């Protein structure tokens, strides 16, 4: 299906445009086709960059951008994942029971293993306390 198209005008370094024109002629295609393909590839590359993805997440969580914008940049699956995770934040987990927490020596049969190896037994207590 044909997509809507928007005409854009912009200035670019002359040598870059000449390179695009040379390649277009060599490949028997158009300058526009070369530029559109390059733009598409760059946007896909940016969407894979973790710094960019992190910035998109930040913007979404701060309500600076909406679901549709996330979807257009990172794709539908990632947008749905972020929406689902975002919606879950203020959903309170069931209240835990907190009355009787056993001490570590009772809780861990044989005591708490320690890492790095060799440090085991160096602490009188069997590990951090709850």
């Amino acid at each position, binding site marked *: 299906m044909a997509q809507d198209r928007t005409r854009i005008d912009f200035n670019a370094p002359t040598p870059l445009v000449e390179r695009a024109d040379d390649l277009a002629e060599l490949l028997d295609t158009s300058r526009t086709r070369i530029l559109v393909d390059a733009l598409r590839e760059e946007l896909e590359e940016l969407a894979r960059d973790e710094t960019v993805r992190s910035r998109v*997440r930040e913007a979404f969580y701060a309500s600076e951008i909406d679901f549709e914008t996330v979807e257009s940049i990172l794709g539908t*699956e990632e947008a749905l994942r972020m929406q689902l995770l975002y919606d879950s934040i203020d959903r309170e987990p069931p209240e835990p029971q907190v009355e009787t927490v056993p001490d570590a020596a009772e809780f861990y049969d044989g005591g708490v293993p320690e890492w790095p190896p060799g440090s085991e037994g160096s602490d009188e207590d069997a590990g951090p306390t709850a």
Partner: protein
Amino acid sequence: MAEEPVAVLDTNVLLTLATPVVDTRSVAPSGGDPLRAVLTGYTVNVPESVVGEVGDATGSDALLSAAADAVLRASDRLTTHAVEGRNEPAAVGLDGGELDAIALANDLGADLFVTDEFNSTNYLLVAQALADRNTLYTTPHVLCSLARHGALDRRSVDALLTYFLETKQWSRTYVGALRREYLDT
């Protein structure tokens, strides 16, 4: 007395909770034991395959192996179930333990299903596979809730979240939002 909520945990969650407990390096927080808090605060159910995966993680000098050992030493607190009839892992993109855990959560009508898989599209797959997606929570979310209810103190949970952010591929943005919501930080 109210009954403990019924929780189902995946392998990664158990190992994540045990990691700061066994890590004696100075980067690891020493103020709170998240594995003990979770296994005491909730009735934790796991499929046999998850216990098997934890066992598979032992036997080396790695931090993960020590964490797995700690989980096994605390396994009296886990209620283990045989799970049959789940989907094949390859068909849905989740591993065997995850699929068994989801099937178990659905069978039990669990109050919460906890996953660490929130940074990938597996989170969507888990949500779709659960009978009630409102029971889906993440490890940092549960830790924050434990702080809110006094099962762990807030400073400990804050330190644990910092530790996990430095050692795991967790989203800082998401954890930051949880901190603001639950820890007032």
